[in-house]
């Protein structure tokens, strides 16, 4: 694909120079480190609140928090990261178009498909690195606080969460290409996030769709057996490919 390697190198340099990479990795790390800390610390903090200041609520701590609580907290915190993905991807093509950078790049021997792919692969690579950073932070701190970590389940959880981010990045960048508007791309990304949450509330249906990634992740955390994993993964991969193909088709015919 003509020019893909060059465009990817430029994207990498841009993420580093504009400090978006650093900010993203720090946020991922905060999610990783903050989750076991919250799992351990919140019940302890609540226990210190005097009874008469609890508004009549009776706090019953039936057990000490453990590794699974840290995973549950990690899942909750990680579910906010699609917002970061949408914010960092929404202007990736629409912004370059608005600033009129696009004509100079596409006047060179670069295919529009390579351009689009570089714009999707760059945030995906950052999310892969971010997920790894968050996962390592979480694993180390969870082991330190709770003395154990369920590695296979934990690795699978991170895989599902990463795939979820890939979906949001693809949708947002595709919208950035097709709608020619940063605001429009943000609306699509946030809409997809909202839709996945709504569908996630209907687990029996969501398991057959990309929204099932969240359901599977929740099942992993509580130790429920995973069902219809293949359907969920296949529908997610299919949707990513379909969105890319659609954006590629639109961009190839688009006026620059």
């Amino acid at each position, binding site marked *: 694909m003509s020019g893909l390697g060059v465009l990817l190198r430029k994207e990498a340099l841009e993420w580093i*120079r504009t400090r978006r990479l650093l900010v993203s990795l720090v946020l991922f790390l905060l999610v990783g480190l903050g989750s076991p800390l919250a799992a351990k610390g919140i019940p302890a903090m609540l226990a210190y609140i005097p009874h008469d200041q609890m508004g009549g609520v009776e706090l019953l701590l039936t057990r000490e928090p453990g590794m699974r609580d840290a995973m549950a907290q990690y899942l909750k915190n990680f579910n906010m990261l699609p917002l970061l993905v949408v914010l960092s991807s929404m202007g990736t093509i629409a912004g370059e178009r608005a600033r*009129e950078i696009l004509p100079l*790049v596409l006047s060179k*021997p670069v295919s529009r498909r390579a351009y689009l792919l570089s714009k999707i692969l760059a945030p995906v690579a950052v999310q892969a690195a971010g997920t790894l950073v968050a996962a390592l932070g979480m694993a180390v701190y969870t082991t330190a606080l709770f003395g154990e970590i369920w590695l296979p389940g934990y690795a699978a959880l991170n895989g599902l969460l990463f795939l979820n981010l890939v979906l949001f990045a693809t949708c947002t960048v595709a919208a950035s290409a097709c709608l020619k508007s940063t605001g429009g791309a943000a609306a699509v990304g946030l809409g997809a996030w909202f839709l996945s949450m709504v569908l996630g509330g209907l687990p029996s249906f969501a398991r057959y769709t990309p929204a099932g990634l969240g359901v599977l992740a929740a099942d992993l955390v509580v130790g429920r057996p995973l069902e219809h994993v293949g359907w969920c993964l296949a529908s997610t991969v299919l949707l990513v490919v379909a969105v890319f193909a659609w954006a590629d088709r639109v961009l190839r015919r688009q006026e620059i």
Partner: protein
Amino acid sequence: MAPPVLDVRSLVHRFPDVEVLKGVDLCVEGHGVYGFLGVNGAGKTTLLRILNGFLIQTGGTVKVLGEDVGPEMMHVRRRIGYLPQSPAFHGWMTGEEVLRFTGDLLGLTRVETRQQTGDVLARTGLASAARRRVGGYSGGMRQRLGLAQALLGRPDLYLLDEPVSALDPVGRQEVLDLVTDLGRQATVFMSSHVLGDVERLADHVTILHEGRVIVREATRALRARFLRPIYDVVVSGDTSSFEKDLNESNGVGSWRVVETHDAPALKTLRVHVNDEGRARVALPGLVAVHGLALHRFGSTAPSLEEVFLRVIGSQGDAS
């Protein structure tokens, strides 16, 4: 035999609310500088965008360097240097990095990129600013950088959209010299609304008006074709009755007032005459009859601006 550099036939382009190009025919062959003129909205930028494959035409055929244009014309893109009207870059890159990135996109080797980057930075007068971030460049520096990236890869065809519009007089002179130089080794197709620049540089002129090519000719031939003697009559006093008589005078084709800012009390009337011998005698007499003071009287060669205005004017009359 090499195909024409640009071969445009019956080109039509329609936007939803307006037809911008209405059957453009254009053939550009060989090296040289080709000036591309037109009033605002004539369709110049639309044509340049189609030539770059940024816009797919509604009808007609367009070949650039022998290949059909389109979004994926990879091979031919290596041979085109394009400068948009307002070139924009990533502000976080330095000028040198922009050129390195461009060289990589063109598939140049590291050594070629390094050599050519040094060369084009020097030619465009950006060598001292090469390591500064583009975000801090002035408009003129960005235009120079735009030209520098167009020079990389030593293309066969340069498509330049208003290449000196953001430059100061010194910069303008330098870039125009550079464009003249490029025209000796390649084909330069340059749009501009500054007729003086085109007149100085271009061997050939194409005039686009209301979506159609109305003139496509060598600059010298065009001027010769429209060559009619012009007299500048510089007078002071009330010229209203003089102007009335001028309209009715037999030897006069047309005339207009030329703006003069250096001497506001004086008025310059540029008169196109049909019969030079009669006009040379009659015009000073007419000035005297109307009691005007004659400050200067002399003939002048028609500039491209005069030709352009007459061509556009005659099209307006025809329509």
